[in-house]
């Protein structure tokens, strides 16, 4: 279970985003909807430990992850979190297989790579360099990399943004199936896919943007 409390993230220009307290249960899937720039990606980064909040806490199974060292965060992320970034974050000069096998450096078992790529419809691209793939193909490679380690928490930032509706629907189904007893939290713009999730959260109501002056006064 993941709970957030009084989360606040400040930016270099002085502005800040404050989030309502949230709780994400195991075995549930969550769709985060909201306008661009409302703080959805920042929220995922805070949950993943990629960003550290200026105040507030992210508790994972009762432990405050914000107090973890960078090494502890890295370790938790590689073992438990499958993060699908909006801009994929793939090594462009390496092949699809190498991008996924990179996780072996941390002892992740990637032996199921062929089956996973097959299910995502990109097995034929296994030895192709990422640079030569389309946006949709890259997105599915990013999904494969996130799912290969069978994570207990899947964070997906616009995982269907570059896919057509049919493929997107299949990918969401794949993510929900893989989440299993874990938690899936996905940011999406596609209202048609949102009903597939157990819960729909409107980030326009959860995230509160404060301009520079307002933020500094509150601080």
């Amino acid at each position: 279970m993941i709970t957030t409390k009084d989360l606040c993230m400040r930016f270099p220009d002085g502005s800040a985003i404050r989030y309502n307290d949230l709780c994400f249960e195991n075995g549930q899937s969550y769709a985060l909807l909201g306008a661009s720039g409302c703080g959805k990606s920042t929220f995922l980064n805070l949950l993943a430990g990629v960003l550290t909040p200026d105040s507030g806490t992210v508790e994972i199974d009762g432990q405050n992850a914000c107090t973890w060292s960078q090494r502890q965060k890295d370790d938790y992320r590689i073992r438990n979190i499958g993060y699908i970034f909006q801009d994929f974050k793939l090594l462009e000069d390496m092949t699809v297989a190498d991008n996924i096998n990179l996780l072996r450096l941390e002892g992740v078992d990637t032996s199921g790579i062929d089956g996973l790529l097959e299910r995502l419809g990109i097995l034929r691209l296994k030895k192709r360099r990422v640079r030569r793939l389309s946006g949709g193909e890259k997105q599915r490679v990013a999904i494969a990399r996130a799912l290969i380690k069978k994570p207990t928490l899947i964070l997906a930032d616009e995982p269907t943004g570059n896919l057509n509706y049919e493929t997107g629907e299949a990918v969401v189904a794949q993510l929900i199936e893989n989440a299993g007893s874990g938690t899936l939290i996905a940011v999406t713009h596609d209202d048609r896919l949102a009903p597939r999730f157990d819960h729909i959260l409107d980030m326009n109501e959860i995230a509160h943007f404060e301009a520079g002056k307002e933020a500094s006064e509150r601080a």
Partner: protein
Amino acid sequence: MLKFALKHMATRRAKLIMTALSVVITASVALLAYNISTQVSEGIVNTAAKYDIIIGPSGSATQLAMNTMFFTDKPLGTIPYSLVEELQNSGLVNDAIPFSMGDSYNAAPIVGTDAKLLEGKALSSGEMFSEPLEAVVGYAVARQYGLKPGNEIVTSHGLNQGGAAHAEHPLTVKGILKRTDTAYDNAVFTPVSTIWVLHDHEDEHEEGDTHEHEEEEDHEEHVEHDHAHEGQICAVLVRSTGFNAYSQLMNIYSGKSEYLIINPNTVLREVLDNVDLSRKIVYLLCVVILVMNLFVVSVIALLSLYDARKEIALMRLIGISMGSINRLYLIQNTLTGLVAMVLSLSFSHLCLMLIRDFVASMGIVLNAAHIYPMEWAILLVVFLLSVLPTVIATQRMAGKDGMSQL
């Protein structure tokens, strides 16, 4: 990890090749400069150590030493052969070896002497000369011209190619010297009497022509081709019986104005001292090259790392630990450094082999296989330069989260 590191290197091969090449070129120059200067100095000192005295006609001590030790430069002139007998009968010497030079075979000097000059030097085939017009050929000369025992060689007048050939008196090759990596590889040895035979014959030819030249011209010709005629030699190489004998000989012959008596070791060390400034300049150049190397390699490594920073940040984001990232880059840079080291060493010694024949023609034979401890030290510095910048830079990224590096 290694497999992944190799794949990762393959994606950046252009940059890695450029890095390795810059290291190889600069390190090779440094290694080559150090190796050559050291081998030349050592070769000179080692060669001179065999004899404690050389007696020749009065003139330049350096010229006498270089001529008798390395068969370079022209002889100073001639002295009577009777001096050899006088020394042998003095009881002050273990050996008094006659030395004559003035002719050549394809620019390889013909050294008139006796078999004692070649003591300690093994023959790869054939036997030692014993009669006039017999010869033992140095390793490099035999290899270059494909000479074997039983072959005949026609020598020519003077030390350079193009002199009149002594076609009427070819020398018979009796033996081939084993490789010595000294000036002996580049010379042809024959009894001193051979030189007398060749030049008595030559004098018969010249007698008819001399009246056509003015006296001054004859004199210049004589100086230019200062051969040892019958009963004459160019110098005597001496091994004295001990320090007392050495002192006595020095006293006796330094008092005779027609002779020049030298200790070759002392003379050659003076020569080396004079060229010490050149050596210092070479070493300074080595240091400059190494500093340039340091700069070039560091800049390239840091630029590569700057490029790789995004990649490292990306790896961090997906949870790859800094330890793994460090190991990944360390393996890559170690491999690059090792390849650069091996290539530098190979390239510098390949260059040594290539210039070996050229330097050998000057009387100094380089051993291309010889590696000095200092060369390993240079290579170690090069290796550390290849690895350290990456280690330092990745360490500096260790405490930061991946997102802040993107």
